[in-house]
């Protein structure tokens, strides 16, 4: 009983450490985004105005605008205000048109999250299945096929996969629409019905990536001593694979979760542009062309926060699966 209590307090301490680290990462992230866009290249107005607009504007007027926008205050004050706003989920307003940034990115964000969730829903079970099959057939033909195909799937850029699918399934066969005409505020169902090719493109890259990770973990797990010992005790093979080896193999995959989640967001941005899907990718490119620096900041911070959150969940799963990580 005492031992159990001890384990519980270890778990709690490890959990709190992860929470603190995630929060620290978020603060560093926001600071970095602020420095990269509003301090190093000048201030927000310098970034928003193009070089032509800058030179056309009389210096007094520029100075007056900066005072009005509060950009003449010291960097530390502006950074503090920025972080304080974020802590209250306030993403600020656009510099010129004064629209709330949260209002601009809310629907695109929802639409992109829909893509991410659908992709994960299909990719995870398929990748687990393929990874386990490949590892079980280690260095035999199933393994070679899965490894080779997944290396190819992982090497092809998403914009190429997406474009090929459009050419093949939408242009040559006309099975699917080539671009999506659904509105930004369309219901989730309408959007998903319009975008089978978008999800398919994302799935190819995701399955390839996750399968490779899982296969490596599974090969190691299956050749480890503890699996050998389980085999000697006569536990059925399927039970060893799914009940004992898979949880151990999931750990390296879970620790690469941040990398995968970040790659998925990048993939979504690209694929949205190939298919004109109304999500953050479209919004990002629009904001870059309009030089709306606060929208770009908000998209970067929100996406990164989602990645941090996914990594946090993966860390907790590792804590639950692997008792060694609970040691202080």
């Amino acid at each position, binding site marked *: 009983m005492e031992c159990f209590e001890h384990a519980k307090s270890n778990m709690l301490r490890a959990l709190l450490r992860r929470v603190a*680290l995630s929060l*620290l*990462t978020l603060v*560093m*992230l926001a600071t*970095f*985004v602020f420095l*990269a*866009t509003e301090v*190093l*290249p000048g201030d927000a107005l310098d*970034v928003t105005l193009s070089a032509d607009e800058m030179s056309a504007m009389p210096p007094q007027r520029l100075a007056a605008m900066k005072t009005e926008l509060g950009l003449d205050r010291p960097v530390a004050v502006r950074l503090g205000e920025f972080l304080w706003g974020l802590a209250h989920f306030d993403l600020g307003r656009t510099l010129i048109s004064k629209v709330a940034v949260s209002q601009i990115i809310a629907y695109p964000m929802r639409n992109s999250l829909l893509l991410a969730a659908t992709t994960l829903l299909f990719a995870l079970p398929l990748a687990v299945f393929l990874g386990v099959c490949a590892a079980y057939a280690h260095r035999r033909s199933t393994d070679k096929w899965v*490894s*080779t195909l*997944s*290396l*190819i799937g*992982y*090497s*092809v*850029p*998403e*914009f*190429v996969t997406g*474009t*090929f699918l*459009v*050419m093949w399934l939408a*242009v040559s066969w006309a099975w699917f629409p*080539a671009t999506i005409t659904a509105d930004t505020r369309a219901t989730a169902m309408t959007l998903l019905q319009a975008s089978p090719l978008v999800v398919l493109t994302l799935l190819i890259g995701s399955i390839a*990536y996750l399968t*490779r*990770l899982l*296969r*490596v973990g599974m090969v190691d797990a299956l050749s480890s001593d503890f699996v050998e010992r389980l085999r000697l005790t006569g536990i059925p093979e399927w039970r060893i694979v799914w009940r004992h080896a898979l949880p151990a193999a999931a750990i*390296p995959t879970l620790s*690469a979760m*941040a*990398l995968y989640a*970040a*790659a998925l*967001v*990048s993939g979504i*941005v*690209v694929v949205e*542009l190939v298919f004109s899907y109304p999500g953050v990718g479209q919004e*990002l*490119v629009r904001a*870059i062309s309009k*030089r709306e*620096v606060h929208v*770009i*900041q908000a*998209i*970067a911070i929100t*996406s*990164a926060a989602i*990645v*941090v959150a996914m*990594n946090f969940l993966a860390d907790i799963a590792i804590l639950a699966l692997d008792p060694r990580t609970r040691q202080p």
Partner: protein
Amino acid sequence: MSRFFRHLLRNPLSGVGIALVGLHLVVALAAPWLIPHDPYQLKDLPFAPPDTTYLLGTDEIGRDFLSRVLIGGRSCLLVALVSGALAALGGGLLGLFAAYRGGLWDEVISRVVEMKIAIPSILFVSLFVTGFGQSVVVLVLVIMLIKMMGVIRTARAQGLVLMSQGFIIAAKLRGESASRIIVREMLPNILDLLGVEFALRTSSALLLVSTLSFLGLGLSPPTPDWGLMVHDGLQSIRSQPWLILVPAGCITSLVVGINFATEGVVDAFGMEYARGVAGH
């Protein structure tokens, strides 16, 4: 060494990979002599079909497409190679430094790496492109920063293993400086690792550069670039599909080639390390 080559050649895929990379490098180097026409000059009507003068026809404004494809790998290869090399070297040194110093330095470096990994590459580039404008120098530096983070992690882990070994302890006792120990004692021991990192980072840098060009955030027109060509080809996807297929095939075969070749080399070295665990 001969065992290494035998092992390498026994795996047909690594042979295919090395051949693809070799072919791409030769074409990229020899492109100025291979191109039949000036890739920047308007030659004929837009979207002219392939004929004997223009083997792949002309592009959307009438430039010779074959010449543009042949020369289109140079800029993205150069950006990827330079940023891949800088990332491998810089990341290697920083990772070893973190392992050597430990304590606060290690903690700070690890936190920064973790923070950077949370920002998706395309958004990371967008932030810098917004702030500093679009130029090749900005592109190389930003991609180097992105690709460096994974190298720091690997080099740090390897550095921690080295730290407990006799020759490092001996060097410390001799009173050698930190920079000397890191560069002279530790770095040579992770060169094979950094070589693999260089290959992996270059291939993922290539993916990133071509994707950025496709999005209009990377190399800018009129530079011939495969990513840009795929983007420009979308408008004629029905009538001239080869304007997309050829550059898309080029970029894909190059990245697949590097990854096959790297995997073959890693296997032949017997390095269990990094099988497929390279970040995008």
